[in-house]
């Protein structure tokens, strides 16, 4: 099997389990884009799962497939005991109210012609048909929760806000239906570092206040590490490594995780710029490399890597890697609190 394997799955207790998810898109002339090729992971209630990888690794496609936007080519997505991929259309609509999304570009994901109060209230007006006081109250409550003054912002339109504020509006819109899960697709990539910190803090607060489960998709491991309880590293439609964020940073086992860590710009002039650099380009997902998909850019590559696909295996408690030649990881590491 394909950098897949399921040893890291935690069975019944998970709120969402994604198994053998495959997402393929036609690319014309019978070619097929293998965006996601058989990945599995699960999320416990109240957990934040970080999905990290470069552009084109299939992390956004995975997030959207969980919402059935569109339904995956193959595989299963179970949410709270319900198989999402087999739900009839009407039930799917109903289920989606409990799963919301936040996108990368906050400005283009808001309708520029509508007022903030209408944008945020749209979910309510579709589902509850009560445009009365309770709806207004709920809208004001979520706007207040995301740090916007309802009295000031309600009648304004998106162009009157900065990127960070628009992202707050998107978060309010996602919260208004009291969802269980929010899928955040690169929610801070388009924002300044200072605003990024505000939004990351806000997501943590909202998670606490509303008891949310989050899927956090990003390309920057430093950002993902800050918010996640468990991190899945993806590369070209496959899972490379699954671990707790602190264990992943302290003892990265997959060569690709190494590269991601070395790419983070350190705000410290005494810290030498790492000379580790990923070489080459991401291979085409139309014709992915045989065996391990990372082998074309891996510095540890051996013959075995092109013939046999690595399967996820547990190398330390709750630390899984899909690599034939992973870095040594001390087995005593318990995943949390060992990094200084």
């Amino acid at each position, binding site marked *: 099997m394909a950098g897949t394997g399921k040893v890291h799955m935690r069975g019944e207790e998970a709120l969402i389990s994604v198994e053998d998810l495959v997402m393929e898109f036609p690319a014309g002339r019978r070619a097929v884009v293998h965006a996601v090729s058989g990945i599995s992971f699960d999320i416990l209630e109240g957990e934040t799962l970080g999905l990290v990888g470069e552009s084109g690794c299939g992390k956004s496609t995975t997030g959207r497939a969980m919402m059935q936007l569109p339904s995956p080519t193959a595989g299963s997505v179970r949410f709270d005991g319900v198989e999402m991929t087999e739900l009839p259309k009407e039930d799917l609509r109903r289920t989606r109210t409990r799963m919301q999304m936040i996108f990368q570009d906050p400005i283009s994901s808001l309708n520029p012609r509508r007022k903030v109060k209408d944008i945020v209230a749209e979910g309510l007006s579709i589902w509850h048909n009560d445009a009365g006081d309770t709806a207004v109250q709920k809208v004001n409550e979520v706007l207040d929760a995301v740090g916007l003054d309802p009295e000031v912002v309600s009648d304004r339109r998106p162009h009157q806000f900065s990127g960070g504020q628009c992202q707050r509006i998107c978060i309010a819109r996602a919260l208004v239906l009291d969802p269980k899960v929010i899928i955040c697709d690169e929610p801070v990539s388009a924002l300044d570092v200072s605003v990024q910190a505000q939004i990351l803090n806000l997501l943590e607060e909202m998670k606490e206040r509303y008891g949310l489960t989050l899927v956090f998709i990003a390309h920057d491991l430093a950002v993902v590490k800050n918010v996640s309880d468990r991190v899945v590293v993806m590369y070209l439609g496959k899972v490379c490594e699954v671990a707790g964020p602190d264990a992943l940073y302290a003892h990265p086992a997959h060569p690709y995780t190494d590269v991601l860590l070395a790419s983070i*710009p350190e*705000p410290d002039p005494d810290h030498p710029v790492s000379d580790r650099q990923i070489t080459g*380009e991401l291979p085409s997902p139309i014709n992915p490399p045989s065996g391990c998909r990372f082998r074309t850019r891996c510095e540890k590559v051996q013959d075995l890597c092109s013939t046999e696909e690595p399967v996820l295996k547990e190398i330390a408690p709750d630390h899984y890697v899909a690599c034939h030649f992973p870095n040594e990881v001390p087995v005593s590491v318990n995943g949390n609190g060992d990094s200084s």
Partner: protein
Amino acid sequence: MESERPLLEVENLRTYFDTPRGILKAVDGVSFSLDKGETIGIVGESGSGKSVLVRSIMNILTSNAIIPDGSEVFFDGKDTRNLSRSEAKHFWGTQMAMIFQDPMTSLNPVKKVGIQITESIRYHLGASKQEAMERALELMIQVGIPEPRKRLKEYPHQLSGGMRQRVTIAIALACNPKLLIADEPTTALDVTVQKQILDLLASLQEELGMAMILITHDLGVVAGRARRIGVMYAGKMVETADTTTLFHHMNHPYTEALFKSIPRVEHQSHTRLDAISGRPPDMVLDLVGCRFAPRCRYAQEQCVTDEPDLFDTGQPDHRQACFYPVGSPENAEALAANQATGITAAGLDLTAAAVS
């Protein structure tokens, strides 16, 4: 180095825009200089005026821009603002070149990459088509594009984001400029590609001996790349120093706040970030006092009424503009006083400082 005149001298540069809402003071009195072959990093949030600053240096502003008297930009001893349009045409590209944030929008989508690179070579250097193509091929190799001969015949949409940014760098370097201005060159890219592009810029700079202005909102990006750093806030430089001094003796509260808002990979997960509350001021208004005061944890009465100027800190080449610099006893007193009342002199609530 002392005897030679710097490559670029910017003196009290002010750039205003005439907008329907009033005069917007995007850059309001910025001075700095840059030696040949040196890199300066300019750091600040969106709206701090850093992009307008470099556009003023290049003299590529929109028609509603006003540059009041007293603003001076000298490049290689010449005042760039007195260049006629025809002089300027051969000035851009051969003397100064610029790369932008989004490589997709700065490349022409309907022209092949090769044509876009050779355009400036043929225009500025009068090279023949053949010569220009050969030079373009050299440039493609220099910026690390695989299969350069094939790529020359492709369109921008056929390249990845990182490759496109490499192409814009190749275009910028085509006529060996003395100064390269990189305006957020990696903000639209993945971290892995960001590192590749920054490494590429550093090695090209060393190889070609050009000076560089690197603009970013992330202190992490400039830490290992620039020799000197200028931190901008609301149209002003608030702190300038060489990189090591800046990181070791951060004086201005804004620099400190920018630094603290970066999520650090060596911190445990779920570490709460010290976000800067609030937003930069509206630059159309007449601003009184320190421009950062409304967001500053240390703000005192003086900060609300008086505007601090840049002054020397005593560290070599280190200037900053704060009455209560971070790390000083006055700063500690100011913070203690503010914490005791729970509110700063500028009205920032320290008890709920996280949410704006």
